[in-house]
């Protein structure tokens, strides 16, 4: 658990570091640090509840917030995503519409049921609900996300769940003691939950139905362990009964509370939140220490030179410096060969991704659509379901395709960057050599790799409109296909074939356009970030190299006394940085 004051202390402690960053012209590092700091300061933690349909996700949420917000009647299934957060007063906003026109409206609290439980035949155009309520449990910033179950008959449900899954901080996978853990559940857990969530816990709800909870726990752990190839000790599984927890609110009997296992669930959630926060906290510490190290190293080069009495060949040093400057200048010039190469590579990756997308859509709107329509059992509804499913699958894969391209590219650029910067001949001074040969962009590339993907896709739910564009794009596209097709459900077979194509094809194109735009935007953002980073890195490298060369030249000109004086000066500069690093290190150790 991170105490509130510890975070405050850390933020206070790194203030001087930020000053040092800006004194040393580390602008992009300052920006990165700000992003990491936002993570620590963020009050809201998004906890997503997912699992197969009718496993008691909504009742689990109701039992946590101690209110019946999510509809739980046995004959209905949750059909939309609900985001439930703290608010002074009850308030519900419904987001709906199509990609061209996203709208929101405030609806009555009593109408939540109406919008969240629609069945697939008359589900309206709701994309998600945002619910604010004055629940004590949410006051600390816990935000619960209720999702439609997966595995039912509506393909859109699974898609909505996976989309929001990648936008949440934490996830609970809910299964039920009613049935053994099935292969469909395992597949969802392995394919959709594991890749985007850090050790998602599993809750076996409805344990009130069973007498063999130990056996169930073992069974779930064992299956997940085997299927996902995880040590079963590392899988967190908890049995729970939302029924008993809700019963406890009525009876106030201790035995109901105890047997519901609610205390353990609460602990589990708190523990997950703590881990999440600690992680963010440590990220800030590590990053600050690392950048300070970086700032410190030219000073250490100077110090070493001051302490040793070996003379340095200024000529060679100057040559090395000059060559390096030239190369750096090339990096800064957008028309240079290196920069053109990079933008060509980004372009290639972009067209690769687009081609995959295009190809899929061509297949979908020609061969596949024809095949679906001409299947002996085909009717408008099955065709719609299949197309819908294909688009959803493709859309949910897009982020993955884009991210793997970005990862590939940043690795490639890192090695090209270092190749460009390395010098052909030996330079004097081992420290200088190390400094000049140091893989310059590594930290920045790492940062891009680790954080850029999150920057692209994160920040979704808190600021509402931007985040949802993809869901709307595809969801709405698929939705409109379905609406169009619905009117043909009653049509005649032979006329229908053409009619279906006429309705579905424009919708497939609409979905294509939306996805194309999405991919393009992401690549533009990525290219801009990469180029910006390379320019900054280049500028910083020039600056640092110049600083080192000049200081060493100065040192060479100095006599013994001046050297001692200068040594004291450098030591004086290094000392506060090291001190600061020490403080941060200690603050970091306090959370472990």
């Amino acid at each position: 658990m991170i105490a509130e004051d510890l975070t405050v202390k850390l933020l206070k402690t790194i203030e001087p570091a930020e000053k040092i960053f800006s004194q040393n012209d580390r602008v992009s590092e300052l920006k990165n640090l700000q992003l990491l700091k936002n993570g620590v300061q963020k009050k809201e933690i998004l906890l997503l509840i997912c699992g197969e349909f009718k496993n008691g996700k909504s009742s689990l949420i109701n039992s946590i917030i101690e209110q019946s917000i999510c509809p739980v009647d046995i004959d209905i299934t949750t059909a939309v995503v609900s985001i439930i957060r703290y608010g002074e007063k009850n308030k519900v906003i419904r987001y709906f519409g199509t990609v061209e026109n996203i709208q929101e409206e405030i609806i009555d609290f009593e109408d939540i049921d109406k919008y969240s439980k629609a069945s697939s035949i008359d589900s309206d155009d709701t994309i998600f609900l945002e619910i604010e309520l004055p629940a004590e449990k949410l006051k600390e910033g816990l935000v619960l996300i209720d999702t439609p179950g997966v595995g039912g008959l509506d393909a859109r449900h699974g898609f909505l769940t996976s989309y929001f899954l990648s936008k949440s901080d934490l996830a609970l996978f809910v299964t039920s003691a009613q049935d053994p853990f099935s292969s469909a559940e395992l597949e969802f857990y392995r394919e959709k939950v594991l890749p985007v969530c850090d050790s998602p816990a599993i809750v076996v709800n409805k344990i009130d139905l069973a007498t063999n909870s130990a056996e169930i726990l073992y069974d779930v752990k064992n299956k997940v362990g085997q299927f996902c190839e995880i040590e079963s000790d590392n899988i967190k599984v908890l049995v729970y009964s939302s029924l008993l927890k809700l019963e406890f609110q009525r009876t106030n009997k201790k035995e109901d509370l105890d047997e519901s296992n609610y205390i353990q669930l609460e602990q589990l959630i708190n523990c997950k939140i703590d881990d999440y926060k600690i992680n963010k906290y440590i990220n800030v510490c590590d990053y600050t220490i690392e950048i300070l190290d970086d700032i410190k190293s030219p000073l250490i080069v100077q110090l070493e030179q001051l302490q040793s009495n070996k003379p340095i060949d200024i000529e060679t040093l100057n040559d090395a410096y000059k060559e390096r400057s030239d190369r750096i200048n090339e990096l800064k010039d957008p028309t240079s060969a290196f920069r053109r190469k990079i933008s060509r590579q980004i372009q290639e990756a972009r067209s690769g991704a687009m081609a995959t997308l295009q190809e899929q859509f061509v297949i979908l709107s020609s061969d596949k659509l024809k095949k679906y329509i001409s299947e002996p059992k085909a009717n408008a509804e099955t065709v719609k379901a299949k197309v819908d499913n294909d688009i959803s699958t493709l859309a949910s894969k897009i982020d993955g395709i884009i991210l793997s391209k970005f990862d590939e590219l940043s690795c490639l650029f890192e090695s090209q960057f270092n190749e460009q910067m390395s010098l052909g001949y030996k330079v004097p001074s081992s420290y200088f050599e190390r400094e000049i040969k140091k893989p310059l962009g590594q930290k920045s590339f790492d940062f891009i790799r680790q954080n850029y993907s999150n920057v692209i896709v994160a920040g979704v739910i808190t600021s509402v409109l931007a985040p949802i564009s993809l869901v709307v794009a595809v969801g709405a596209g698929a939705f409109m296909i379905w609406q169009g097709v619905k009117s043909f459900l009653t049509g005649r077979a032979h006329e229908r074939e053409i009619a279906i194509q006429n309705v579905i094809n424009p919708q497939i194109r609409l979905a294509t356009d939306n996805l194309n735009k999405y991919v393009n935007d992401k690549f533009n953002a990525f290219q801009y970030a990469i180029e910006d980073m390379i320019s900054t890195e280049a500028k910083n490298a020039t600056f640092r190299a110049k600083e080192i060369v000049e200081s060493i030249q100065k040192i060479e000109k100095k006599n013994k006394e001046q050297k001692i004086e200068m040594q004291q000066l450098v030591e004086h500069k290094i000392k506060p940085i090291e001190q600061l690093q020490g403080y941060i290190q200690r603050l970091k150790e306090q959370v472990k």
Partner: protein
Amino acid sequence: MELLNRILVILKSAEYRLNAPALEPLKDIIRRTFERLESPMQVAIIGKISSSKSTLVNAILGQDEVVTTGFKEVTFNVSWLKYGSNKNDIIVHYKNNQTPDSFSRENWLKWANHENSDKIKETISYMEVPYESSILKKINLIDTPGLEAFYSIDSQNTKDFLTKVKKPDAVIVLFSKGASKNIIDVVRDFQGTFSESFTPINAFGILSKIDDYWPSENDALIAGKRMTTKMTEEEPIIKRTLFNVLPLCSQLALASSVINNSDIALLDKLSSIPVEVFQNSIKTASRFVSENSELNLSIKERDYLQSKFGRYGILVLTNYIRDHKDVSLKEIKALLKKISGFDVFMETLENHFNKRATLIKLISALAELKTSFLKKATELNAEGKSVIDSINSEIDVVLNSEPDYKEFEVLQYFYRGNLDLTKEQENDLLHITGEYGDSALKRLNFAEKHSVQEMVERAYAKRAEWNNYKATYGLLDPVFEEAAEVISNSYLILKNKIVEAENKFTEANNFLFNI
């Protein structure tokens, strides 16, 4: 059934015509079709793991542990239950065309335990289990391993059996929470092989384990009905895939056969403790069997009751016994049949599968006959081919002249979505074709008893109505025209049958009772 007889005549005469040795394989095909038509209908019970399939099989047979049951994945092979002595050997069929083996029951039980389960799953295709229960004379039951099982070979064995190995005539699909896409896909695959005749006629759904809806709901059966109604109304794919979906609690269905007087004595004892203590103790499964329970039964007794009736069953039975002193075993059995949904289930099984059995069997047998012919046709000379063609066309002629078959075809069109009907027309169609019951009253959509005169009048009126539909819309839509003709004709046939039945009735009455 007349249709069956006419088809049998065609096949018999075909057999005589196939004298040339080269045509011997065709004879085999025809013989297999005979066999199939003469044997009972085969109904496979399928569903997700642990959706109480085996319990349902036991319940239909009215006997505990004919097939094993349990919480986890315990059914690890396909069991085909046929009529025969309980002492007869179990016949094991292998996947690799190896000759089937016979096992005595004792030896089988010794071998078929969990240690050997992997081997069994790998090598065995299915096993035939003879069992002495009269229902098996009419319908063979096939118990299958669960779908969506962790051990994927379980699900594969079931899917293979349905589409490749045996192709049963019909399936009963169980799901415990709601229909999942995976399960519906399996049913549709099965139906797809069914001569491309895509209709829910050969599949019906069971919403099982309805007792789990208690205590959120007081009456599990009512809750289950609400859910099944909603499912069929709101999910078009359900309506197109399954004939009907019924709520059921297999455990209590089985209990209605196997409950005995000593069980009632235990429940009677429970009914004597204060209601509040009882209700609190039954709140969760583990509390009911806990060591420091306030209940007046031993842990062993409580455990026994819970595994036999479940908490919902115990609650309903105990409350009933408390309110009705000196209740009889018969009364309790009837109560269990009712609250479990078993009475409606058995009625539907009888109405739908048993009465339509011949037609369903005929369709699937003829489909297989045609497919086998098609496969063989390439190996035959011109003479052989012409024999096949003539048999095929004779069958088609018979089928097309048979009102029952024509009705079936119209139903197919309807379920495929190729027939545009108003709500009222749809209602007429489903009733007259016997989808809701076979009696004249039900086919005319009368809710209660009516006189023969009234029935005849309605049949007339409906026939006129459908003739009118045919004249008005038929020109625009040939499919509708044909359907309207078939339905109108069905009303005429029904009217004739009613009149005929009344005459016979009067005749019989005169003969027996006239003084």
